[in-house]
């Protein structure tokens, strides 16, 4: 018997629980033969901003032990060109389309979500709350109040499912999670990159053009797992787990810790076939363990220990 890979993330029905992390896969109108977005549980666009922006100066990426730092800075064509030129290309794709939105104020958020709500081919929005908030000089996702304001603005502007992507750089992730749940987020995405830095001993300077960047890759998997675990106990809305997932086993760990779906990011840079392999690996694992559906695994960790024989 084939196991059921479908999973619900709040109002969003996915044929399998695996999707790319925002900014780590791009749909260019077609895919290489060995990479098919049609097989993904969902597609997630790179973040779009209200106005066009060029992104950060080089150097934008640096390798770190089992991971990488990026300071890409969200290059974006702006919402209008995105709606005219980019989004129509997604009509060709089968999976739900999740548009990642980077707003620098609740007002910007409202106006972008209003525009996105008119589109036939947007199935959900993911709010990237981790970029510096220009108005307040702080990062939205580092403040429960600012995060709630942003999500509330989004909620007021759209009936689309809203996924709030939180930053790990907080004292208490559950506090932020509860705050965005309260104002109507449909799901959490945990976690964005961890703030980090690389120093070049030759030049004696920060390596990245933007000095600091976001750490991703297998290095941060234990951090992400811990936050998924913690938030699973603290909120009722579903969690999309992300952070260092490179194998089916990694994905299963997130499901066990409480994620209903997962995103694969940095692993795609190393191996563009990662998503397909993870999807196949999850299916195989379910079959081996005699499980009927992905849903059975979600949050299993929290049920208490199995008895292990000698």
């Amino acid at each position, binding site marked *: 018997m084939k196991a059921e890979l479908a999973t619900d993330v709040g109002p969003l029905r996915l044929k399998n629980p695996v999707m790319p992390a925002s900014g780590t896969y791009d749909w260019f*109108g077609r895919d290489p033969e060995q990479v098919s977005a049609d097989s993904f549980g969902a597609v997630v666009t790179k973040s779009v901003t209200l106005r066009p922006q060029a992104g950060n100066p080089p150097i*934008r990426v640096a390798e770190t032990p089992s991971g990488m730092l990026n300071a890409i800075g969200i290059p974006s064509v702006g919402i209008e060109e995105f709606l005219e030129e980019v989004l129509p290309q997604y009509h060709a794709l089968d999976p739900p389309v999740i548009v990642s939105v980077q707003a620098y104020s609740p007002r910007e958020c409202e106006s972008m979500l209003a525009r996105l709500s008119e589109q036939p081919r947007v199935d959900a929005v993911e709010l990237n709350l981790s970029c510096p908030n220009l108005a307040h000089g702080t990062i939205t996702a580092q403040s429960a109040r600012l995060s709630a304001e942003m999500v509330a603005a989004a909620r007021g502007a759209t009936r689309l499912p809203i996924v709030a992507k939180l930053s790990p750089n907080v004292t208490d992730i559950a506090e932020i999670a509860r705050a965005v749940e309260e104002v109507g987020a449909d799901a959490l995405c945990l976690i964005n990159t961890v703030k980090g830095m690389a120093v070049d001993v030759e*030049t004696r300077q920060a390596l990245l053009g933007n000095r600091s960047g976001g750490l991703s890759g297998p290095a941060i998997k234990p951090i992400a797992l811990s936050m998924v675990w913690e938030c699973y106990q603290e909120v009722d809305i579903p969690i999309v787990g992300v952070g260092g997932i490179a194998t089916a086993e990694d994905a299963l760990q997130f499901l066990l810790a409480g994620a209903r779906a997962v995103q694969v990011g940095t692993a795609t840079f190393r191996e*563009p076939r990662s998503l397909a392999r993870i999807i196949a690996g999850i299916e195989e694992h379910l079959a081996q363990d005699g499980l009927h559906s992905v849903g059975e695994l979600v949050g299993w960790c929290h049920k208490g220990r199995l008895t292990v024989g000698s």
Partner: protein
Amino acid sequence: MVAETPVNTDWKIEDGVVVENGVVGPENGDIGRVVIEAPGVVAAARPGHFVMLRTWEGEPFLPRAMAPLSYDVASGRMEIFYRIKGPGTRAIARTHPGEIARVTGPLGRPVVEDFEGRRVALVGRGVGITPLLPLAEHIVAKGGEVRAYLSARTRDYVFGHDRFAALGPVRVRVDDEDGDEALVTDALARECEGYRVDAVYGCGSWRLTRAAEALGVSHGFPSYVFLESKMGCGVGYCKGCPARLRNGDGYKLVCVEGPVFPTREVELSDPVHGPPE
């Protein structure tokens, strides 16, 4: 900022096999040469293309961008020269014949112009010489003429010298014989006086490419640069390899909008911290 010509999505991921691998020149030198059999990628490669290469499991996490010196369709092999500098290139240097080389490619936008009757100068230094050979072969095959101006630290590192020589005149400057003040583009400058040049392509040295560009400006021919960049993915996903556009006009991505750019478009100077690996 949406690309005007489609992004290359015609790449494949192939488990190639290492056929030869070793250090070039002195035994303790920092330049390696690896030959990889990966017939699918080789058959599809055009001048201007590059590949992402990984010959190791585990660390480092990311593959490395490489521009082969040559592709041989008959044998399905490509020949890559690499500077042994960081953990990735050290891992390549440790690879033995028979081991697997994961190759993703061909990547980037190829040079597809028609070169019929056109006279092209190629200016390269060090491992930056290597992407010029497939271009040289292509130009000659298309009925053009090439002259190569090659610069290196030592004669061992003038990669593909004889193959360039079989295609047209070659001028060489090597630091340890000619001094590093001597520019191989001085020869190009002299020859521009008596010879019509229709275009120049530079790679591997900001200084030489700037000199080539200046000659183009004064003699009225366009100049192009093959850019090298640290890359995350090589395929356009990560946006990690920006080339600065002139006049502060933002960036283009080396991987999918390059690696070859008209020099008038991009800044010809080091991205912040010295040459990328």
